[in-house]
């Protein structure tokens, strides 16, 4: 099978589940004999991997002559806010025109290559590649599989979503031959909110590579002695960091020796710092900012509890990362990953008392921590990228078969 895959982020240029997914998926697909051309925006860094051909789409210049630098696309909100507040930064319209330029070049470049290579299928990821993929489908007559890792309504937690992006998402799920979602929960949202027909959706769950989370450093090496409760993720409304801090306040009423670590960056950072001060727990909260992969693996390893209070989460790969690190997890029920893991403590993200009560229990009872960690680890033996790739390939093959009829 010859596959043209349209992506956006790719390691080391990643910020979320999409990049991690593309990296592992393509690697495993290649192992299953799929020949892949991976299209991504120009980075100027000439990314290379041994298992596939990475094709960088032409650079595009901004009106001021600078080359557009792709940041994580999930920060569209930040860009707009900056625009609205008159602060400096790339304007929202620049991102949108950059996306449109990328998608245009994408379709043209694809068509040129297709004449030589004769692809069997186009696969693309999220709204950000939809326009180019839909155009490519139309021009080539090839079937298209669109994987929706998240939707605009997820990312904005339903607060002021962009109609423009919603429109592209609707167009994408309507035009794609088949659609892959990362959870049943996400499939339901696609049906309800983007009017996607139920019959064309397949659910393929994400996974984790436990070898990347082998760190077993001790917390003393970090200078910590207290029980460590970790939040890791983009600091945005969607990920629920405020609930984490509210729960922290409650925990500290009962357990003085607890430290709350918030890892990641995002537009909510200033608000969270202020909240910690207002709650009078600032001395117990550590903000690490963005951490590179190895340090993150260390942080997972030293944490006694990993809390994932996401308001609305199509999947939630970091939960699997924490499990792979041997760290017990408290998980929001409104997350896709909750559909495939049992050996975690599940809570309603808004129920900070329940969340705090579970954090306290994990800090107090080593037997509970150990049993959860051991059982979670064995639960992961079936949650592999290999399995993700196999199920994805089944969708690809089905799509090609049906398209020939």
């Amino acid at each position, binding site marked *: 099978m010859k596959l043209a895959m349209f992506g956006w982020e790719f390691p080391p240029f990643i910020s979320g589940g999409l990049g991690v997914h593309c990296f592992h998926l393509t690697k495993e697909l290649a192992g299953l004999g799929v020949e892949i051309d991976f299209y991504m925006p120009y980075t100027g860094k000439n990314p290379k991997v041994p298992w596939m051909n990475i094709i960088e789409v032409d650079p595009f210049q901004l009106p001021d002559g600078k080359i557009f630098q792709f940041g994580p696309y999930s920060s569209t909100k930040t860009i707009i806010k900056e625009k609205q507040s008159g602060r400096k930064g790339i304007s929202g319209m620049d991102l949108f025109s950059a996306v449109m330029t990328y998608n245009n070049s994408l379709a043209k470049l694809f068509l040129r290559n297709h004449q030589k290579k004769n692809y069997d299928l186009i696969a693309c990821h999220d709204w950000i590649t939809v326009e180019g993929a839909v155009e490519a489908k139309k021009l080539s007559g090839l079937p298209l599989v669109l994987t929706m890792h998240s939707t605009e309504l997820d990312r904005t937690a339903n607060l002021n979503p962009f109609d423009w992006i919603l429109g592209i998402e609707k167009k994408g799920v309507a035009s794609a031959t088949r659609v892959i979602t990362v959870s049943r929960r996400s499939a339901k949202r696609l049906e309800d909110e983007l009017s996607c027909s139920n019959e064309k959706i397949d659910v393929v769950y994400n996974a984790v590579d436990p070898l990347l989370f082998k760190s077993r450093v001790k917390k003393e090496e970090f200078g910590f002695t207290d029980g460590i409760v970790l939040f890791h993720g983009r600091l945005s409304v969607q990920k629920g960091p405020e609930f984490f801090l509210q729960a922290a306040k409650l925990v500290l009423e009962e357990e003085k020796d607890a430290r709350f670590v918030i890892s990641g960056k995002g537009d909510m950072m200033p608000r969270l710092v202020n909240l910690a001060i207002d709650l009078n727990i600032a001395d117990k909260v550590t903000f690490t900012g963005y951490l590179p992969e190895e340090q993150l693996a260390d942080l997972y390893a030293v944490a006694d509890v990993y809390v994932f209070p996401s308001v609305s989460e199509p999947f939630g790969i970091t939960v699997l990362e924490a499990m792979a690190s041997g760290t017990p997890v408290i998980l929001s029920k409104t997350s896709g990953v909750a559909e495939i893991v049992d050996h975690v403590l599940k809570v309603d993200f808004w129920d900070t008392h329940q969340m705090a009560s579970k954090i306290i229990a994990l800090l107090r009872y080593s037997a*509970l921590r150990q049993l959860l960690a051991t059982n979670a680890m064995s639960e992961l033996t079936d949650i592999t990228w290999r399995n993700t790739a196999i199920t994805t390939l089944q969708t690809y093959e089905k799509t090609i078969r049906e398209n020939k009829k």
Partner: protein
Amino acid sequence: MTKPSICLYFHVHQPTRLNRHSVFDKSHRSKNNPMDAYFDHNLDKFYFQKIAKQCYLPANKIISELIEESDGKFKVSFSITGVWIEQCKKYAPEVLESFKKLVKTGSVEIVDETYYHSLSSLWWDQAEFKNQVKKHSDLITETFGGQAPKTFRNTELLVNDNIISNVDSIGRYTGMLAEGIERVLGWRSPNYIYSHKNNSVKMLFRNYRLSDDIGFRFSDRGWKQWPLTADKYVDWLNNSEGQTINLFMDYETFGEHHWPGSGIMEFLYWFAKKSTENGLEFKTTSQTVQSYKPISSVEINGTVSWADMERDASAWLGNKIQDYAFSTYWELENGANELGGNYLDAWRTLGVSDHYMYLCLKSWSDGDVHKHFSPYKDWTPYDNFINYMNILSDLSRRMNEQLDKPKIETTIKMPTFPAIPEIN
């Protein structure tokens, strides 16, 4: 060849359900009686009345008819836990009355066990186990009159050599019930009375195949013997060899584990009726022990029970959180005994084995029997552990507060000594 007799035994028990006990909710602290702070009486009442209607009352009625119609030849044995009797008195006293009537017929025998259906037999110190057995037999004689029970069944048929010796040392029991599995019996049949190698108490082994045909498989439409008719079943009994066929099961089998529409109630009636017609004799547990000579002797090294595929103690003490909860529980034994009263009652009620069953993770994610019995359907075993530990730590807090209080206001004045002059 003489036909084996039938020893029919039913277990009657309901757990005491726990309150949802959060570290942050301090409202329970205003409840002075720990029994009210930790247990959800409303939930108990709900289940008890439901099961009384579905199972206890209709099943008792059938048994009473069977006894009457057979002139007392139909016989059955029950073990009834202390916590069940407590709940029955509060929530459905008419059920207790109907049990009393059954016992009065002389055809129904009560089997002893621990009052709290507890795991105390598995703790290294046996004082509490013996106290609970005594408390149970006292309650049984007080409730039903007559002599103290002569046979014993431990919680969920948990049995090993050690437990047998401890039960035997009480000195009152002629027989004890156990699971008739190959691990204990090898090639030998459960349909005989056995002696134990160093104790005088005789062993009655459950015929698990014939018992589970009723207890588990009766309403299973995937089972190739479904539907199980009384004729077919009596045929199986008739073709069995040995001294006794021990049919041991939960009383809730009738109307609760198998819903009334499955025909289980009719089955109970007709299987008993047709057994008698076919010349099969019913005996109570103590009559069975008395009637036959042991055919050989057994020893039981590892613990066996009638639970799960494993048939051991792992349903209650099989993972880290269960072991941890169990040892934390026993740390409160001395304090509970010292304070007595409601504190002792609450501590003992927290030892009801069901609380440990709810912490079992074996094939929990497949949704099996453990999930079915847990009162909080949305809770995982981990959640149940947290709740149980919250309650234990609150009980510990309360007990420490009480123990720190000066217990007796003494009127004796301590003699005052003259101050010792300081030496420079």
